[in-house]
């Protein structure tokens, strides 16, 4: 591809305001991902079944009786999200590369970072949908009330951090020879702060800890989200160029 096409700042092809064009590009990619998923129903289904299987395994591995549940629920939930998440991230990027969609997307006259935010937002929707099924299922199976407003916020913040880093790293992993095994190896050590902070915040909320104890973890999640959104914004160009 000629270098001139790769320069950023080509938004607003029809002379509209740049920001509106940028947002429209992001929305278009999210819509494309959701429409494709609505027709094939392969990604969400796999993530959901996998999550339920993980909870089943945790149930027996940890003997989730009433006493244990109080302390390990947060850990079980976030391990489930983290493992199910890699499944979705890998698949979502592999589809783009295998069917040549990525080349088509790169030819579109939009800023490269709009592609990134579109893919990340699509992945975020999938993560949140999985959470929207797993949380009530877990609540019903173990009769714990997981529907606390604070917990929804933690799930959102944690998922944003996970998905931002995950989308960036999965776009590298799918272009490698060893892609099926590479993503978790790249992702888990980098995303560890999110998992720690989210588990601590969730655990605190479930045990009705005083807000000062939880606030530190929430700040950490926000800081992680902001820092890595900025890093991804700056480096995504270098991953997809060629």
């Amino acid at each position, binding site marked *: 591809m000629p270098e001139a096409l790769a320069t950023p700042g080509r938004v607003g092809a029809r002379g509209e305001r740049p920001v509106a064009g940028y947002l429209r590009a992001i929305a278009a990619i999210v819509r494309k991902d959701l429409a494709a998923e609505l027709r094939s129903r392969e990604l969400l289904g796999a993530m959901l079944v996998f999550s339920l299987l993980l909870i089943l395994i945790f149930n027996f591995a940890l003997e989730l009786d009433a006493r244990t549940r109080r302390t390990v629920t947060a850990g079980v939930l976030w391990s489930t999200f983290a493992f199910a998440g890699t499944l979705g991230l890998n698949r979502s990027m592999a589809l783009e590369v295998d069917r040549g969609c990525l080349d088509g997307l790169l030819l579109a006259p939009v800023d490269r970072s709009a592609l990134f935010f579109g893919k990340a937002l699509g992945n975020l929707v999938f993560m949140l949908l999985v959470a929207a099924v797993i949380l009530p299922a877990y609540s019903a199976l173990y009769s714990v009330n997981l529907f606390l407003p604070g917990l929804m916020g933690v799930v959102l913040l944690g998922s944003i951090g996970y998905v931002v*880093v995950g989308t*960036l*790293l999965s776009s*590298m*992993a799918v*272009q*490698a*020879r*060893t*892609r099926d095994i*590479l993503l978790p*190896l*790249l992702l888990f*050590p*980098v*995303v*560890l*702060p999110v998992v*720690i*902070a989210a588990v*601590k915040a969730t655990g605190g909320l479930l045990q009705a800890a005083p807000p000062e104890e939880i606030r*530190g973890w929430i700040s*950490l999640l926000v*800081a*992680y989200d902001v*820092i*890595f959104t900025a*890093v991804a914004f700056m*480096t995504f160009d*270098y*991953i997809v*160029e*060629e």
Partner: protein
Amino acid sequence: MEPMPRALKTLNWLTAALFVAALYMVFLYAPREAVMGDVQRVFYFHVSAGWVGAVAFLVTAISGAVFLARRDPRWDRLAVASVELGMVFAFINIVSGSIWARPVWNTWWTWDPRLVTATIMELIYLAYLMLRQGIEDPDRRARFGSVYGIVAFISVPITFLSIRFFRTIHPVVIGSGDPTAEGTFDMTPRMLQAFLFSLLTFTFIYATLLWHRVRLARLTEHVEERRMQLTSA
């Protein structure tokens, strides 16, 4: 085959001399620590290795950023050489810490923030090497390596912050530490001199090895190019 530059030869001898002097400082010049005894002497090389590990990964992140800006493969060779060395030094740091922890903490290992961070750091850069291994195209390998080197270097301090909230028993000798930490001690002037000298020596060892490693990478590339020329001729 290009000859070894004179400066590198000099650096070899200088580093070797420094290392012998550092051994003298650590084992004979520095006094025996009153409570922990001779095992405390691990401290000098333990902290120096950790310091060099951190510097090496910083060098990788910076040369990754410079590579992305300038696209000169020399910066990528520097980045990967520094990761390899950083992993070796970080591993020396972990192993020597473990040897020190056995008599002082009464365990080889504990899930302390610094120990966890050190482990995560090794794992991240192991993933860095695996990522590079999985990509054949040299340009793409360099670009992905640069991006991951930057992401990794930002993530490690956040990991450290995120577990720092837990209670720590690791002593902080430099600066103000928690006085309840196990195995902390006050440095006498001779100890401080031996410590600073070890830091200097390890930095020299790193610089020397880095130069050798970068040179080796360049020579390997030359050999590859020659082989391509011969097979295509």
